[in-house]
């Protein structure tokens, strides 16, 4: 498998795969701060 194809697949498939996992840990868009729900992420 040539290097270009390997790099292409790392970027094309690796990026969304990593982000899929990372987004599991993304905080809720609204969180409880100072006893009220406020937006913390978009």
């Amino acid at each position: 498998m040539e290097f270009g194809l390997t790099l292409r697949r790392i970027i094309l498939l690796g990026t969304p795969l990593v982000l899929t996992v990372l987004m599991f840990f993304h905080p809720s868009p609204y969180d409880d701060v100072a006893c009220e729900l406020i937006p913390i992420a978009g």
Partner: protein
Amino acid sequence: MGVALWMLTAGLESVVATFSRVAAVVFALFYDAGDAIAGISTGILARSAEEGALGERAAVAAMETLFADPFKTLLFDIGRYAWIVALVLAVVALWRAGAPRLPLVLMALPAYLVTFDHAFPFGSLTFGTFFVIAAWLELAPGRLTLAGQPRRVS
């Protein structure tokens, strides 16, 4: 993700594929800018409030100001629409290049899911569906020659 979106049509030489890649760049620029304001900035404010460097009330007021700001919303909206445009144009370009039809139809999923928030579960669903569909297209029989050989499509 902008680069991944670009890679979806890499090797395809057509006007539609080129516009898809341009939209991918627009998505990367604007969505990241919006996320820098809404996500990173509010994260810093929340951490400062937690550490006591900033009063919680002041942090809440600052976050609400950030989220009410129409410029932040505009950046996110441009980014979201660019993602949708890039995907639709990529589907057209890949369709014309003879890619499998079913994964191209399913590309509607990440295009729709990006309209929601990217926090869990929608972010994972957006990028997860993109991953599955991109893998399907990439590993489909005949795709190797498609990627390796630049093709001109009307």
